[in-house]
């Protein structure tokens, strides 16, 4: 049977067909759908872990215990999980272990565009890179066999373009691998990485890498497509597709395994062509390895090392480098349309995070942010976030700034899921080392940005089972925070009162702003659009400062001040009434006027 699957769906399908029993992940674009899809297959266990390190440890535990397992994450998740990833390379596992990383060239939804192939070289583990959905499925199955053959974790590198592109996939059946372990292994020389055991493991993983490099010479995912002699291209991932499209007459060495590299295959290919280039996204990862073989090669001198590639960029760069004639340039329409209004990412209408950011803007305090929907509090007109680096950073950055002697009140802002992810140890530090940091946990009862995933605070698991709800107030009190208050996230006045009260203290304090995401199905049922009384509105513009997409500038001008009155788009308004509460003239009505 053939079905059109996205790259992420294909990875999940491959894992299922490979007989994977256990999977763990933390949501992160573009990887989120992999485990969501996998969790729907029969006979598997899949979970959301609180962070990627936990997810990789969980997968390692399952693979030690004799069941095939994977963990999936976005590229920066592997930074969090790196400690676990590195020891897994040292120990190996009893059964197949695959770590899926979804890199984000072009930073569609990430803070950087790191090339995680480097992690494969760093950890001495093989790296597989599919070029479409069919390959993603086949390679996922092969990854488990490879892992077991060489007793190594496998890094499975996806990119946004492969994750979120769809193409035909031939479906197969699930094959249950024979149970390899009946009892959890008692093998400290292999699994207890104290220095005395780790030292003899290191030469083994270096030898393992050489053996895998030998395997790479004949691996079916590394293949030569011989065409013209004039130009030879080495390409991997989606760049292979661009190479096929832009250079139909060039010979190609298509690398599906991009670490370790097949030295002889590369040398033979180089000898068969007159000019050798590498087309790869981001780092010159393959290119530098080829150069170390003393093989003349070009790559990043022609193609950019920044951002996502696309066929047009590849074509234009190739023309500039003389690889293609000027006549190869694609026709484009040179009509100047002038500027168009943008649609920048912004907090949704009715978002429960908006009121707190409005208050923080008013208080003019430094706000140390974190990763999630609420990251958008930085954007105009709210302008209420001043740093954002990675998951869990804000609380510790605030602590550091306070300890540096900055006399202002530092407010760290973090979402519910991100607090569980890496906020907890940072708050422990604030309590232990005592800084007057105010932490706002924006608890919207779900992991929002990645599309409504369950987390330890929601009461449900990935596979829909009821779970204990970990409540924030008792949790942070147990850590030793004395000043804790939970308020309705839409109550701007109460948020302001509480923050001012906390700012008078010289101690750690936690404000929990709580209201479910306005887009949750049960919340949508309660939407009730508001309206503006145009007789009363004088166009003061205060409500525009909320940055609510549902509040528009009317064509009607106030007669006295000649400024546009406000207008509410009833198709967008949820009735959260934050604008009604801040309107100085009481112009926002909570009932629709009779037609």
């Amino acid at each position, binding site marked *: 049977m*053939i079905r*059109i699957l996205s790259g992420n769906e294909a990875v999940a399908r491959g894992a299922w067909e490979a007989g994977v029993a256990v999977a763990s992940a933390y949501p992160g*674009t573009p990887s989120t759908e992999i485990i969501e899809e996998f969790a729907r297959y029969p006979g598997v266990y899949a979970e959301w872990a609180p962070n990627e390190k936990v997810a990789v440890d969980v997968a390692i535990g399952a693979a030690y215990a004799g069941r095939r397992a994977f963990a999936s994450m976005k590229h920066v998740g592997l930074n969090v999980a790196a400690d676990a990833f590195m020891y897994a390379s040292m120990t190996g596992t009893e059964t197949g272990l695959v770590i899926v990383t979804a890199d984000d060239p072009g930073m*569609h*939804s990430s803070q950087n565009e790191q090339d995680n192939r480097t992690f494969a070289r760093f950890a001495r583990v093989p790296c597989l890179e599919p070029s*479409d959905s069919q390959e993603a499925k086949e390679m996922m199955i092969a990854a488990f066999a490879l892992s077991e053959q060489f007793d190594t974790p496998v890094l499975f590198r996806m990119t946004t*373009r492969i994750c*979120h*592109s*769809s*193409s*035909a996939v031939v479906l197969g059946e699930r094959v249950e691998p024979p149970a390899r372990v009946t009892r959890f292994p008692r093998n400290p020389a292999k699994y207890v990485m104290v220095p005395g055991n780790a030292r003899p493991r290191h030469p083994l993983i270096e030898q393992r890498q050489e053996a895998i490099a030998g395997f790479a010479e004949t691996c079916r995912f590394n293949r030569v497509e011989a065409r013209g002699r004039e130009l030879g291209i080495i390409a991997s991932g*989606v760049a292979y*597709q*661009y190479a*096929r*499209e832009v250079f139909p007459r060039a010979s190609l060495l298509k690398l599906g395994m991009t670490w370790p590299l097949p030295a002889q295959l590369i040398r033979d290919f180089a000898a068969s062509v007159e000019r050798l280039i590498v087309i790869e996204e981001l780092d010159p990862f393959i290119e530098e390895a080829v150069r170390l073989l003393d093989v003349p090669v070009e790559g990043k001198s022609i193609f950019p090392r920044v951002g996502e590639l*696309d*066929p*047009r960029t590849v*074509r234009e760069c190739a023309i500039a480098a003389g690889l293609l004639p000027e006549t190869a340039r*694609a*026709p*484009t*329409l040179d*009509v100047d*349309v002038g*500027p*168009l*209004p*943008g*649609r*920048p*990412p*912004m907090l*949704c*209408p009715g978002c429960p995070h908006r009121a707190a950011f409005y208050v923080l803007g008013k208080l003019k305090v430094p706000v140390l942010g974190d990763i999630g*929907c609420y990251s*958008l509090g930085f954007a*105009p*007109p709210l302008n209420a976030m001043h740093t954002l680096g990675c998951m869990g950073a804000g609380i510790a950055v605030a602590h550091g700034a306070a300890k540096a002697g900055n006399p202002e009140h530092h407010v760290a802002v973090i979402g519910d899921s991100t607090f569980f992810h890496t906020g907890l140890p940072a708050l422990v530090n604030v309590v232990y080392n005592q800084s007057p940091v105010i932490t706002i946990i924006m608890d919207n009862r779900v992991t*929002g*940005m990645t*599309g409504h995933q369950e987390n330890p605070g929601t009461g449900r698991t990935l596979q829909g089972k009821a779970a204990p709800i970990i409540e924030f107030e008792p949790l942070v009190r147990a850590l030793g925070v004395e000043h804790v208050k939970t308020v309705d996230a839409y109550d701007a006045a109460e948020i302001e009162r509480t923050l001012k009260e906390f700012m008078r203290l010289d101690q750690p304090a936690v404000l929990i702003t709580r209201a479910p995401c306005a*887009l949750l199905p049960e919340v949508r049922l309660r939407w009730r659009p508001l309206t503006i009384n145009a007789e009363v509105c004088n166009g003061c513009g205060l409500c*525009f*400062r909320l*940055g609510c*997409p549902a*509040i*528009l*500038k009317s064509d009607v001008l106030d007669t006295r001040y000649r400024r546009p009155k*406000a207008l509410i*788009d009833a198709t*967008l308004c949820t009735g959260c009434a934050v604008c009604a509460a801040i309107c100085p003239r009481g112009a926002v009505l909570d009932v629709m006027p009779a037609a």
Partner: protein
Amino acid sequence: MKPLNFVLTGVGGQGIVLSSDILCLVGMAVGYDVKKTDVHGMAQRGGSVISHVRLADQVFSPMVPLGGADYLLAFEKLEACRWAHYLHRDGVAVVSDEAIPTLAMESRTPYPADDEIMSQLQQRAGQVQIVSAGSLAAGLGNPRVANVILLGALSRFVAIPAEIWLRAIAERVPPKVRELNRRAFELGRSLEVG
């Protein structure tokens, strides 16, 4: 078979991904190799969304090259302007007359007027078909079928029989709204071209 490139665009939540899924099924049913790619940024709601669908004997890149789209299917007219440079000179633009406003505080650049949008589209497309998809869908009793009305309007320009489209739609929508979606497609397909 002749390669066909489609670019679908609009604002998050308008049913663009569903529509590009349906186009893929249509292509597969007549024997094309099919690839599509969706580009949605960070916004859950209200962001610009673009989906590329490519049909050919063998498709390599899932992305339609700039200036390489045969069809632009726009669910919102400002988004039609934003992505019209994907069309080639003889390309067809099928555009909903729906306008979704941009943020009040940010609108230093105002939402373009209708005649400006039309003139931009006409400079870039060989043919422009404006469809009152929103009001037609409301007339059918469900604003959510605007996307299938647009698919119906698009189908007039594509040499693939209506039954194939209808089968793909039926495969991809829930059973209880199949009949509604069939009527939406027929309505879009029956619109006068021009």
